[in-house]
């Protein structure tokens, strides 16, 4: 279980972005963090990874205060554009002891990426695929995905969403932010709603459908259009 406790964050003199954010990411489930633009979803992911300093809050991973068991897929490529896909994979393999080369090769074939493809020449959709490949190829029990489907055409979105029904999900607790709910609605286990710097609801997607006949999008309208 990845536990997020009481995150507080304020940028300069502005209104605080996070005002005591607490929620959990269970193992072996896909949890979706939903909030309107500017609510601080990316801030939460980055602060879980320790990439930005928090004013307060703790992250506990399977009972330990360590981030070594979490992988992060940012919304923009962090690999230098002059690298090829093959270079990026070699770099990761050198750098991370928990790199899984077999997964990397399988995903490269599935996404029809070539190791000679230069990252800066790739389309937005293919860059997103490279990002996912790099994240899923780390053998870590938790994975954070920041807007993996943003700005990508429908066909590519469907290819990317395939990964959520694949065996690469096994043994991973995933936290994802997305505005593209329609494409992944039937793939999500849990939904966490963020508003005004706090988590206001945590719902089980199948339960929401079974008990209330509501889709995740119905629930979003209820929560945000008040």
């Amino acid at each position: 279980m990845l536990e997020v406790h009481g995150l507080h964050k304020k940028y300069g003199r502005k209104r605080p972005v996070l005002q005591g954010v607490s929620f959990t990411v269970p193992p072996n489930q896909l949890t979706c963090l939903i909030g309107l633009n500017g609510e601080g979803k990316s801030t939460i992911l980055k602060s879980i990874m320790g990439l930005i300093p928090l004013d307060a809050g703790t992250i506990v991973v399977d009972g330990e205060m360590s981030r070594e068991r979490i992988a992060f897929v940012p919304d923009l490529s962090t690999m230098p554009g002059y690298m090829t896909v093959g270079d990026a994979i070699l770099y990761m393999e050198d750098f991370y002891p928990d790199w899984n080369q077999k997964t990397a090769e399988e995903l490269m074939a599935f996404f029809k990426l070539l190791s000679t493809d230069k990252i800066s020449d790739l389309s937005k959709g293919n860059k997103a695929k490279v990002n996912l490949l790099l994240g899923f190829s780390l053998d870590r029990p938790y994975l954070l995905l920041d807007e993996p489907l943003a700005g990508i055409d429908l066909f590519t979105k469907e290819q990317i969403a395939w990964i959520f029904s694949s065996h690469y999900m096994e043994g991973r607790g995933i936290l994802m932010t997305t505005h593209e709910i329609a494409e992944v609605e039937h793939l999500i286990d849990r939904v966490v709603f963020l508003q005004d710097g706090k988590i206001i609801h945590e719902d089980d997607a199948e339960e929401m459908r079974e008990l209330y006949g509501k889709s995740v999008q119905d629930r979003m309208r209820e929560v945000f259009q008040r």
Partner: protein
Amino acid sequence: MEFDQRSPVYLQVIRWFKERIATGEFVGGQEIPSRRALAAELGINPNTAQKVYKEMEEQQLITTERNVPSRITTDPQVVERVRSELLSEAVAEFVTAVQAIQVPLDEVMSTVQNVYHTNERGELDA
């Protein structure tokens, strides 16, 4: 597979199985895909696939023994139960729809017969 976003995915997948069991497309004793393969094939979450199989075992639609693939039930009573369940559900939905527009039963019945036969002929021609 296309999903109705307002009803549970696992129930939609179970229904997909029931329809195939009722029509005999899936025959008794036939092996079914592993949970992993089903998730990938239908594009569903692996946890949902797990729930589908567990629920289908409880409803005796499939049988699972250790270390071998699950199989479609060979029990004719279960198959008959599935058929009548699907029929009752479809009829209940239909009756609600025609009652909403207040059509008398005899007119409903004769229309049903006409449409049923027309569709059947259409299928033969096709």
